[in-house]
């Protein structure tokens, strides 16, 4: 499926999300990287060792969720823009999804944008909680999303833009 459409399946996703207990505890990183390619910036960027150091350049990233503290530096380090951070219990009724973004202009804090799923379909309007500019030009956008959408929202559409 992923190889034919570019969209991962629920089975794929299952492999990279931690158990419910860990999800309830705080932010977790979701690395949607399922193909062995020679690429190691995520593991190098993680100073906590939460993304385990690679033995081989083509290793898939493995996350130690006990070491992960939510910093999110890996989001902008990934050349494939495949890393997301989610926080299930960000607010009472809202979760937080942090996504990488390389489209200009960046949305601003407080702005309403369309949340898109992995196929680019619109899921609804959500609020930008934070837009963090990063020196390497892969910015990190934090979105407040309904809890039901947290595993689905992976992109945005800014009104009148891409």
């Amino acid at each position, binding site marked *: 499926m*992923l*190889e*034919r*459409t*570019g*969209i*991962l399946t629920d089975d794929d996703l299952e492999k990279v999300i931690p158990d419910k207990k860990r999800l309830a505890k705080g932010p977790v990183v979701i690395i*949607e*990287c*399922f*193909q*062995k*390619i*020679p*690429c*190691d*910036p995520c593991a*190098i*960027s993680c100073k906590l060792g939460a993304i385990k150091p690679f033995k*081989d*350049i*083509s290793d898939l990233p493995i996350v130690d969720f006990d070491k992960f503290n939510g910093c999110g530096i890996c989001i902008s*380090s*990934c*050349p*494939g*823009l*495949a890393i997301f951070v989610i926080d299930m219990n960000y607010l009472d009724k809202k979760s937080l999804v942090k996504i990488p973004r*390389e*489209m*200009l202009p960046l949305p601003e804090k407080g702005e309403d944008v369309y949340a*898109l*799923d*992995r*196929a*680019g*379909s619109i899921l609804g309007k959500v609020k930008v909680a934070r837009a963090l500019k990063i020196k*390497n*030009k*892969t910015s990190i956008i934090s979105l407040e999303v309904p809890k039901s959408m947290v595993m689905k929202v*992976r*992109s945005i*559409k800014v009104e009148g*833009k*891409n």
Partner: protein
Amino acid sequence: MKITDIAIIGGGPAGLSAAIYAASLGAKATLIDDGLELGGQLIKQTHKFFGSEKQFAGIRVIEIAEKMIQDIKEYDNVEVIANATVIGYYEDEVITIVQGVNGDMLKKLKAKRIIVATGASENMLPFVNNDLPGVYGAGAVQTLMNLYGVVPGNNVLMIGAGNIGLIVSYQLLQAGIKVEAIVEALPKIGGYLVHASKIRRLGVSIYTSHTLKEVYGTDCVERAVISEINQNFEFIPGTEKELEVDTICLAVGLSPLSDMLWQTGCQMKYVPELYDYVALRDDNMKTTKDKIYIAGDVAGIEEASSAMLEGQIAGLNAAMSLGYKCDNYKEQDKKLKAELKELRDSFK
């Protein structure tokens, strides 16, 4: 006639790496490139480099090019002949160079060694009306868009879901241009799946087992018909879809640009895995002609990391063969070859 130690033909990742390495050992290097600026395809690439942290991973490709071009400038023993095409080789290692926008300047250069790093050319695709304005190669789209800031079209159909097709689609989206769809003849996406996913979630459909059948338009591209194909790459009747697009971008593979090597008379061999005829060479990147080396895509289509390593290997060994000293040659040579092997193993 001007004389140089090493003439390097092509200023992309392989040629730049070869020039830097040879110059660092003291050899006089002359780098000849047909672009207005050095860098080859690197200067059109805005994405972050994959690969190992040792070889620029995570850095935007354009910045890698800028760094290498800066490094070149720091060597007094490197001469750059830009905006110039090498048009002929004579067997006493004299090459003729045409320079200038109108090609009105002819130069001759005698080189003790030649490193051919001419890269690759894009493949064409046969379909009805493939000569209509609006049909581009992906390289041309990148040149217009990323070097000259010119919009190549408004609504693009990308042909090919290899890394080039995927990356150029993403760049088009970043430039605010609509990408109608990506079609791929193979049943699977050929490029990195993370590239495919990031384009998919911006709403661009990827049709695998599909190809372009026809393009229509009076003076330029107005519509395209795509069709599903079977395992034998034959059209499946009734599966056609018509798309309103004004631009067709072809990203259907590359072939080594080896005309110069044919002319030198070095031994060539057809290697399907390397995508065409390539020059036979030893592990120092030396061809069957003692004074001619190769590096980069002309030696077989790979990617920028391996081109850079091959360039370094060719630069090092060409300089050594001229008697320049490298204190820890054996160690350096071994290290570069090991890195290249590691990189290739990682693609298996």
